[in-house]
């Protein structure tokens, strides 16, 4: 096994363990911490693929900003340990089916794909910062601006909702 492959399996295992722990943990803070582990493991995987910029942004935006807000809200509400409810059988059966279907889909995609870890390393254009900027600000500038507009609308909506109580 080559070194990148070893690192890949380590990070992949970390991501999967974090995701499973996210669901199994009883306390919201522990779940949030597990999600942070998943984010960091994913950033490591991006780094392994040669996408440095995406990896750094993944940690800054997801690990540093969004998850801090999650943790902040959980702390602010002082949420306690979740109450354990017995799983509804109606929800269990379709859930299991969905899991099998999703796993099959992922497996089929992996089997069909001709890329292996070694060949997908260093993806070139998309990985470099100028490459990404060119794509965002030239090829996809309208979708990008529309998304920004959507976020602006969401911010305004949140502000209006927060102001309503005062008046």
């Amino acid at each position: 096994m080559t070194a990148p492959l070893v690192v890949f399996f380590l990070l992949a295992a970390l991501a999967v363990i974090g995701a499973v722990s996210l669901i199994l943990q009883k306390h919201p803070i522990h779940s949030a911490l597990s999600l942070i582990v998943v984010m960091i493991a994913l950033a490591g995987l991006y780094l392994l693929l040669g996408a440095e910029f995406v990896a750094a942004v993944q940690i800054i935006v997801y690990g540093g900003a969004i998850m801090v807000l999650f943790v902040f809200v959980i702390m602010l509400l002082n949420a306690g340990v979740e109450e354990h409810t017995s799983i509804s059988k109606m929800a269990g059966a379709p859930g299991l089916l969905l899991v099998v279907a999703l796993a099959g889909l992922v497996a089929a995609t992996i089997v069909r794909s001709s890329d292996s870890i070694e060949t997908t390393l260093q993806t070139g254009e998309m990985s470099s910062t100028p490459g990404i900027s060119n794509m965002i600000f030239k090829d996809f500038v309208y979708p990008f601006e529309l998304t920004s507009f959507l976020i602006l609308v969401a911010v305004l909506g949140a502000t209006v909702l927060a102001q309503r109580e005062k008046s």
Partner: protein
Amino acid sequence: MNSFLSTNAELILTLVKIVLLLFIVLTVNAYLTWFERKVVAHMQSRWGPHRVGPHGLLQPLADGVKFLFKEDPTPAGVDKFVYYLAPLLALALALTSLALIPFGPEPLPWKFFGQAIYLGIAPPDVNIGILALFAITAMGVYGVALAGWSSNSKYPLLGGLRSSAQMISYELALTMSVVGVLLMAGSFNLKKIIEAQAHHPEWGLFGWNVWPQILGFFCFFVAAVAETNRVPFDLPEAESELVAGFHTEYASFKFAMFFIAEYTSMITVSCLCSIMFFGGWLSPFPASWTFTHYLPSAILIPFGLWVIWDGIRYETIFGRIILPVVGTAFAGLGAVFILLPGVNEFIQGPFWLLSKILVFLFVYVWMRGTLPRFRYDQLMAFGWKLLLPLSIVNVIVTSFVILAKMQWWRAK
């Protein structure tokens, strides 16, 4: 053995560098506490620590021993895992961020099994240097927030909440304020950011980013002080309101870990300020003034002689022995630089970078001795209503100036 060394040269070199940097940083941290106490004391017409060792120089050692041997009780009802994780996280992230700082332009003249030995742990061509640094500091808030939450106590929880809110607010301004510098350098790479400030070697310090980016520097420095939870932004540990804030329930070495993390982030911020706005390892003098290359010796030798002179008159016998030895070491170092021109040329870069870092550390302490703490609403208003708009204006103005310059060049 030799083949093992040569195949794993990079790994071994990095490990050795990590151990060395840890040793240096922890020592500097310890003496930073001494420096801070001395400077603040003199600003307040006191003597500061002066009982343990000559001029209190062994005080950090005594403090360290005290931290190690104090009782370390775990309060009842804490979330054990997170309670132990928080100080580790704070310290580990603070130390990791230093790994990305380049401390000198050139590698050492000899190689380690074909590997060039650069000053600094990461190779100097990390393309996303500054982004990676921000990624690490962005995670730093968890140490404080989780410490506050896991302590199962009111004051730490309030401190943790305050600190998360403060760090989220100021991180925006912090990130926006460096965009101007990045636009001017055209790279995230710390080495290229420094080299971009050396376009006019004859301008000396007037070529640095701080002049065109004075607004960006102001925003960056204020936001960075807030990110490190230092005075006047130390609300997470405001002792008049919150006892000791997020680390109220931490004792002994776990408290020391938060302490070391705070001082390490001070060093990181000073490094970043020097690199991005003050030319990093560039000399403030024009390149043709070669006589300024003797400045390190011109500072070290008189300083060493002064320490010797002070030492032989010191009141304790221990001081009369140890101070002249320290002084001789400083003066000897200065003499070595004069006698060996090659060494003198090599240390120019690190000398200027370290001097700038020292100046910023002094500014940190100076602010602590001068400024009162912000009120919470003032803190939020300052961050959102002043710093963020200012840094955005800075980005817009910088982009337009760069665009205009490019058009002008094209027209010519």
